Structure formats: structure tokens, C-alpha cells
């Protein structure tokens, strides 16, 4: 365990400069925007005089130089203060923390579904490379891999929510249902089935293809030949020799896909009207709320770093070589 903790500590320290680059980069990107939060606020009010705009800018600190504001922003970030959302008139951190659980449920379930089904079907396809099952699964997964998630979401809701009425069309739970405990959990999971499928299917296809390709690679190795020569049962070779060795790259992929999946949830949450983190990003863009957008980008980067730390831990648990000796590059 000590080994894993050291690994995590090293990774956490090395991600601080990277997060700083994200903060500075995002700050100057949003600095490019014509107009600021005060302009957007005045538009939403229906107009205002120059004096009001000046005093508002002064109260938000928008009259200072960009470098000065970058310094103010970074130092308040260090105190976990993400600033104030003009569009929602609330602290940004509160907004993000309120929306994040919905997105984490969505992403977590989609990842679990994609990983479990993807490896399972991948093992099925990779057990006999070139077999009929392999052909069908390979072509099917390639087709699935090409489907845009938001369109898949629309089609799924058209079939299963509008036509068959099996699942609700939108939202995260029935509004004002008064449900609590297990009832509420069931209600939320019924709402999540379609969005999870829409978000997760593309990763299911990815994991299936990786597993299959990895297994095809392992089949050619000498130790598989040795296992065969020993007379091991085929199922045993497939599961505990071939599949096991092909599984490790998938764990790495899990971390690499975290950022993409967070981006994908922006569209899925908009399709299914889930009040999550991704939808907040869309709302921030629509309301031209630059500080909110900035807070969202920075916290999504932190989230991705955290997911990758978890993946590193999982990897260290699965592969005893990781972090055992000198720091691996």
C-alpha cells in the first residue's frame, strides 16, 4: 500500500503545474471575449447607463489590468473560492457542487456499463479470433463506435420513451414526487437508463475493440503456447491467461477517456434535460457567464486529475511492477 501512496503523492505533486497552466490558459482564452459579465448583465436588465456599468465593473474588479485579475483569481482559487456567477447570482463553487453529483452518477454508471459489457463481449470476440462471433461483434462495435451520442440519445428516447413508454423522456427524477429512500433511488435510476446508454455505448464499443485487439496480440505469445502444451482447458487459457493480460491497457484507457466522457456528458445532459455539470457548461455559454465557464473548466480539469489518480491506484493494485522500483517515466 505504501508503494501506491508514494505513486499517488508523486502524481498529485506533478499535476499542480499542469493545473496552473490550465488556469492561466483558460483565463487568457476567456479574456479574448468581446464584452464582459457586466455587459451581459446589463443586456439582461434591458440596458443601463455608463455610470452603473462603471460602478459594477469596479465592484467586480473588472476595471483592473488582466494580470492583476489573474493574480486575484489564482489566489482566490487557492482558497477554493471560484468567484461569483453573474447569471445565477450565486457562488460558483456552490453551483458546481450542486450539479456535480448528477454528472458523476451519469458518468460512473456509463463507465461501469461500458467497461463490464465491453470486456465481456471483447472476451467473447477475442476467444476465437476470426470466428463468426468475432466477425459480428467487430463489425457491430465499429458501427456503434461511429454513432454520435446525442443522436443515439434522441433515437433511444424516441423508441423507449415516446413509443414504448418504458422510461421517462427527460430529467433526473420525477419532479415533486415526494419519494424518499429506495423509491427515490429507483426513480433516479429509471431516469438514468437512457442517458447512460447514450453516453456509454460508444465506450462499450471502444473497450470491446481494445479487448479484442489486445487478446489477438496475446494469443501469439509464447506463454500461451506453453499453456496449450500443458493441456490446459481452452476456457482456462482464454480467461486466466489471455484475457487477464489484455485487460491492463483497458484500465489505462479508462483514465484517458475521463476527459472525453466529461465533454460528452455536456451534450447528453442537454438532450435529456439532466441538471448536471455539463448542462451548467452549456448554460454558462448561453448566458455568456465567463467566470462560471472558467470555474467549470478548471474544476473539470481537477476532476480528470482525480480520476487519473484513481486509475493509477487501480493499476498499481493490478500490476505489481508499477511503482516498485525507480519512478517510471
Amino acid at each position: 500500500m505504501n508503494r501506491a501512496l508514494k505513486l499517488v503523492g508523486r502524481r498529485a505533486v506533478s499535476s499542480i503545474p499542469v493545473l496552473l497552466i490550465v488556469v492561466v490558459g483558460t483565463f487568457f482564452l476567456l479574456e479574448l471575449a468581446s464584452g464582459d459579465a457586466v455587459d451581459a448583465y446589463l443586456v439582461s436588465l434591458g440596458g443601463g447607463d455608463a455610470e452603473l456599468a462603471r460602478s459594477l465593473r469596479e465592484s467586480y474588479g473588472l476595471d483592473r489590468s488582466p494580470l492583476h485579475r489573474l493574480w486575484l483569481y489564482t489566489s482566490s482559487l487557492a482558497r477554493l473560492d471560484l468567484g461569483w456567477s453573474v447569471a445565477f447570482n450565486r457562488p460558483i463553487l456552490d453551483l458546481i457542487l450542486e450539479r456535480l453529483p448528477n454528472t458523476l452518477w451519469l458518468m460512473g454508471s456509463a463507465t461501469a456499463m461500458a467497461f463490464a459489457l465491453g470486456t465481456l463481449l471483447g472476451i467473447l470476440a477475442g476467444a476465437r479470433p476470426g470466428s463468426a462471433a468475432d466477425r459480428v461483434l467487430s463489425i457491430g462495435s465499429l458501427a456503434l463506435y461511429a454513432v454520435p451520442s446525442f443522436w443515439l440519445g434522441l433515437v433511444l428516447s424516441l423508441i423507449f420513451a415516446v413509443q414504448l413508454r418504458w422510461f421517462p423522456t427527460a430529467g433526473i427524477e420525477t419532479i415533486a414526487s415526494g419519494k424518499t429512500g429506495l423509491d427515490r433511488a429507483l426513480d433516479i435510476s429509471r431516469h438514468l437508463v437512457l442517458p447512460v446508454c447514450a453516453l456509454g455505448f460508444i465506450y462499450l464499443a471502444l473497450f470491446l475493440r481494445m479487448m479484442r485487439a489486445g487478446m489477438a496480440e496475446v494469443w501469439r505469445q509464447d506463454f500461451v503456447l506453453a499453456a496449450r502444451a500443458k493441456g490446459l482447458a481452452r476456457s482456462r487459457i482464454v480467461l486466466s491467461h489471455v484475457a487477464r493480460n489484455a485487460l491492463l491497457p483497458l484500465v489505462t484507457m479508462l483514465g484517458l477517456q475521463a476527459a472525453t466522457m466529461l465533454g460528452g456528458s455536456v451534450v447528453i445532459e442537454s438532450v435529456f434535460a439532466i441538471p448536471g455539470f455539463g448542462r451548467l457548461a452549456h448554460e454558462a455559454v448561453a448566458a455568456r457567464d465567463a467566470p462560471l465557464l472558467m470555474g467549470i473548466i478548471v474544476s473539470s480539469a481537477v476532476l480528470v486529475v482525480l480520476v487519473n489518480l484513481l486509475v493509477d491506484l487501480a493499476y498499481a493494485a493490478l500490476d505489481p511492477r508499477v511503482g516498485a522500483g525507480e519512478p517510471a517515466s
Partner: protein
Amino acid sequence: MSFLARFLRSPEGVAGLLLLACLLAMALLAPVLFPRDPLSIVGRPLIPPFADWSLPLGTDRLGRDVLAGLMHGARTSLLVGISAAVVALAAGAVIGTLAGFAAGWLDEALMRVVDAFQIVPPFLLALAFVSVVGASLPVIVLAIALGAWTGAARLARAEVLSIRERDYVAAARVIGMHPLEIAFKEVLPNALPPVLALTSVIVAGAVLTEAALSFLGLGDPNTVTWGSMIAEGRNVLRTAPFLSIVPGLGLVLTVLGVYLLGEGLVEALARKRRRQ
């Protein structure tokens, strides 16, 4: 056996080539067959498909020709997908080569920037960039490339690190070539092949990202895109599901074509290597 012959022996590659050829024909013929602005109103709203032969696929909620939109949309999708891939690959190759060849602090700094780009969700980055700079096709291409160049940069750097030690690079140094000249004239061209293998994945990703952006209303408002057609059709999803389904099928076929073509090329290259 020539490369073309080897390529034609892979069924995936041929299928992909045919799909993309059809889409390319659609894109090229769009302004010839439908010279009018595809966003202009041509008839009654919501004419169902196959009802009126002058408008074979019917009209949308505002009475715009769906077939004209589809063909012009193929143009946008392919244009954005290919340009974004070119920008991402070029930027990635140049930055990766610089990092790998320079080594030391420049390498360290550039790779931390690559890391930073990799922990920000590419779609969020594109969303922020488009909303800040304003939606137009070049901006969308740049926004997509911003999230796609890191893979190419990492690959190029890894490749350059091994090429850097070869004898011909040492020879170039001895004859007094400028390091930048060595990096970009001698090393970069040799580091390119594995980087170019990323093309199909990047093009496919770019097509999907563009569609998602315009689905959310962040596309160029003056061009027809499949994403915006799906978003438009969504308003009448229950009564005319056709309007969202057909442009989505266009997207699926485009991305599938790109992947299949990529697989075919990789397979043909692998066969060549096996024969050598």
C-alpha cells in the same frame, strides 16, 4: 503487389472508400444540383418524404428542402473534419518534433502544456473557444483542433526521440546544418508515418464534435450542418422523427466510412511490412 492492390484486398477498406466516395460526390454535387441557399424556404412546412417529387425528402418545420440540406451538410461535415485533422496533425507534428529534438527545459515545458490540454475535456474547450471567439467555420475548425493535437504531439515526440540518435542526424550536425533545419528537414519527415496513422481517428472525432457543437446551437448560423438539422428536427421529434433521424444516419455513415478506410489502410501497410 502494389499498395493499391493490397488495399483493394481488404473488404473494410473498399467499403470505406465507397462510402466516402458517395459522400464526397454528395458534397461536390450539392452546389450544382441545389444552387439555391439550402436555408431558403421552398414549400409548405413539414411535407413528408416521397410525397412530392420536386422535394423528394420533404421539407422541415420552416419549409426548407431536406435533401438540399443533407447534401450541403455533407459538404460542411467533410470540410470541417478534414481541415480540423490537417490543423491538429500539423500542430501536433511541429510541437512534438520541437519538444523531442530540443530536449531539456523546452521539452519539459511543451510536454506540460500537452498534459494541460489533455486534462481539459476537449468538448468543453471547443465550447468555450467558439463561444468566446464567435461561431464561424474557421473558428470551429480551430476549436476542434485545439482538443485533438495532443495525441499527434506525443507520438511525434516519441518518434523523434528515437530518430534523433541515428547516424544521419549526427552526420547532418557534423556538416553544420542548423538544428532547426535538421529537426524539420531531416527528422520530422521520418517521424510522420505513425503520426499520420492517427488521421482517421481525428477526422472521425472532428466530424462528431462539429455535429455536437452545431446541435447545441454553436455552429456557424449561415451554413447548414447535420447537427443543426438534427437540433431543428428535435422540435418536432414526435410528429416527424424522420427530420432528426436522416441527418444522423448521414453522420453515422461518414464516421463509419472514415474508420473503415483507416482500417483498410492500416491492414494494407501491415501486409506490406509482413512481406518484407
